[in-house]
């Protein structure tokens, strides 16, 4: 299935495009998207988003306006748009 990944906040600034499309098997979790992202992303973007080949715990994965557990399987459907929101702060 094809999942569109939208980058928000700092990830958007570090990514070459605000969206990429990643292909994963049926039933894949958000964590399973990471290898597909790794192939396209810069080292700085990966530092923000990825740890131990999984989505970093401080990155919020948003599907249909809900934060989801990146390890949950069977949430993603073909054609979904998933947003990844790294931390932002005040100042």
């Amino acid at each position: 299935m094809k999942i569109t990944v939208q980058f928000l906040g700092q990830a958007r600034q570090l990514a070459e495009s605000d969206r990429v499309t990643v292909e994963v098997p049926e039933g894949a979790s958000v964590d399973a998207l990471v290898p597909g992202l790794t192939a396209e992303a810069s080292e700085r973007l990966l530092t923000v988003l990825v740890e131990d080949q999984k989505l970093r715990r401080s990155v919020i994965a948003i599907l249909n306006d809900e934060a989801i557990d990146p390890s949950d399987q069977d949430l993603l459907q073909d054609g979904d748009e998933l947003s990844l929101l790294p931390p932002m702060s005040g100042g």
Partner: protein
Amino acid sequence: MELTGEERAIYEWQIWVDELGPSGQERLKASTALVTRVGGLGGPLAQSLAAAGIGKLILAHAGNTKPSDLNRQILQTHGQLGKSRIESCQRRLLDLNPRLEVEAVPENVHEGNAAELVSGADIVFDCAPLFEERLLLNRECVHQNKPLIDAAMFELEGQLTTIIPGQTPCLACLYPEIPPGWKREFPVIGAVSATVANLAALEGIKLLAGFGELLTSKLLVYDARSMTFRKIAIHRRVDCAVCSTLTPGTPTEKDD
């Protein structure tokens, strides 16, 4: 806390808002808010709370005004460059509302002052750029069972949530670690931080006055590029190191 004739005249237009009314205005007058860092977020936020008639502000911010503050820190001025930020905040807020009580603390939040700062407030607004400060303030609010409005921004985006300890996710549920590579200085336009600041002020006014629907267990995500606002459902983390043992209405024992 009863309103004076002068206060009824000054707040007349907002008392006409049915949900607020005279009783909500009285509750604002009786309230104390802590704003930590009074910069691009905390400055316009404190200004809106002062204009709305909150009774007391505790403001915590260290350092002197720099040229790069002036695009967004609207309580600072050119004449204040090189001088104390917090002094300017206090003076300008009292110009706006001389009935306001201001406790100006020329320090940022740290382990040594967090508990005392939080204990004096009915509500806390977290406007700091460093995650160490934000997570410390969150921990203290959870320990003392105080509501925390957390606001943040980056470039043309902002976000906001209202944390009620034991009921909603806390900041450590969202960010269980200090994000790697986060820099204190980051891109932002002042109008973006002021937008998020005023939304945060509205959350606080609603919470203190007791009306409206709050951003509890919701993260408001704002993108000024497309002028879109999304409300994201967020969840408590079962393994949260700060709030996972907390049930509604039961402050934790201090463990430090």
